[in-house]
């Protein structure tokens, strides 16, 4: 990855509104290798829309979205799929393909987009799983796992391989705060490798956490994407 090439480059990107919904404002955001954008978003549907915009899943009315120097709108079908293989994503809602076991779900993108041997992928996934607090690479169907383990497994899938961009839609439920150290370690390792990360959160605890090593703090609302910062002092309740 060239250091001077933005990983993600939103230039006045305006999404086509869904039927019956108002148009979102144009959004601009540039993430360089190693950048980490924490975005406060209370609305998971809006978070998903923004994540779709970043991953080339949304139709644009105007502006452009570039990923690794290439405009999503100019890529062909196969190239688009290949580029998406370089993005690790945690989804806010539906995360899993119910036909497959959870291990196959985790390995699927890497098995599809790379030629890395299955054994290597399984070893790496098992190591990541343990780092996220799972006893090993989880097996069984997604419905057999608890919500906490599913949240961990979603992170394992997102960080597996060497994603150039991480798009994490509400990866931590407040109940799963014990995942935070593992998530921050994985984020730090990915950023050291040159990845950029977007973390969409609706949690006050995460948003106000000053220890997060962010390079951008933003707020996603009906008014669009805006720079935001924490107040210099937060009064104790």
């Amino acid at each position: 990855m060239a250091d001077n090439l933005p990983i993600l480059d939103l230039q006045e990107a305006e999404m086509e509104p869904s039927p019956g919904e108002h148009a979102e404002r144009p959004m601009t955001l540039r993430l360089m290798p190693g950048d980490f954008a924490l975005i406060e978003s209370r609305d998971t549907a809006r978070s998903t829309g923004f994540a779709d915009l970043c991953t080339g899943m949304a139709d644009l009315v105007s502006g452009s979205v570039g990923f690794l120097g290439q405009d999503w709108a100019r890529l062909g079908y196969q190239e688009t799929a290949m580029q998406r293989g370089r993005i690790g994503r945690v989804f806010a809602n539906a995360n899993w393909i119910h036909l497959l076991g959870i291990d196959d779900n985790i390995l699927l993108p890497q098995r599809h987009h790379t030629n890395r041997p299955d054994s290597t992928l399984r070893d790496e996934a098992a190591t990541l799983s343990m780092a996220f607090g799972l006893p090993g690479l989880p097996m069984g169907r997604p419905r057999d796992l608890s919500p906490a383990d599913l949240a961990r497994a979603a992170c394992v899938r997102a960080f597996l391989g060497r994603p150039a961009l991480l798009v994490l839609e509400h990866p931590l439920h407040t109940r799963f705060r014990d995942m935070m150290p593992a998530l921050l370690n994985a984020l730090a390792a990915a950023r050291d490798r040159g990845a950029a990360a977007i973390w969409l959160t609706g949690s006050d605890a995460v948003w106000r956490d000053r220890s997060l090593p962010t390079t951008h703090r933003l707020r996603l609302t009906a008014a669009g994407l805006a720079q935001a910062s924490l107040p210099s002092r937060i009064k104790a309740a």
Partner: protein
Amino acid sequence: MNGFRRFLQRLGRSVRARTAFALKLAALTFAVLRDAPMPGMWRRTARSEFHRSLRQSVGGAVGTIVVTAVLIGVAMIAQGLYWLTTAGQQSLVGTVLVTVLVRELAPLLVGVILLGRSGTVALSEFGTMRSNGEEHVMESLGLDPYQLLLLPRAVAYALASFTLGMVFVIVAIITGHLLGSLAGYERDTALGLLSRVLSAMAWQDFAVFPTKLLLIGILVAASSYLTGFGARRTGDVTQLLPLGFVRAITAILICSLMLSLVA
């Protein structure tokens, strides 16, 4: 006047929907025929799905195929042998079996059984994926549902259909022969009867029989895919089954009829 207009609207909507489905089905079938020989389409994820689908479609239907073939052997072939022998027309046995069993009945029954055992399962899976938003997950991860789900299944169903068709014809003929031999009106050996059937086959039959079976397999998969992923996100998956069944049966019948007419 408004009533007439509404009637025309309903009629037009229905015709457009059916035409659109037929065109999409034809396009998907063509795409499968075009992409199946391309090595680039067969990544290991697609190969895994192909193996799983082939095991499920052949393993799941072979028992039903054998039972149906035995019933057809008893009800149709043994009867045919009896009446043709009684009428002194043994020389027509091969022609009758080729025309009725090989060209028409076998592909049709195999298609219906494949649809029941595998097509409806696929339809239910695709419909559930659609209603759960799983296709969105797949596309976001750069996984093409066509390449990962339809192509391997269509090729697996096509091969399964051909395999099951061969099993069906052989079991039906052997059963009819056994019954005829036991009853005393069939004096030839089983191989002799199979040989008469093969001799009665023209080159068109050698082309039409596998073509029908392969195309029917692809149509079962493509119809299930289109119905499952074409459903509304909030729709009830169980309501898709009758729709998918009717669509696939119609496609099988039309395909069989058209190939019979061409031959």
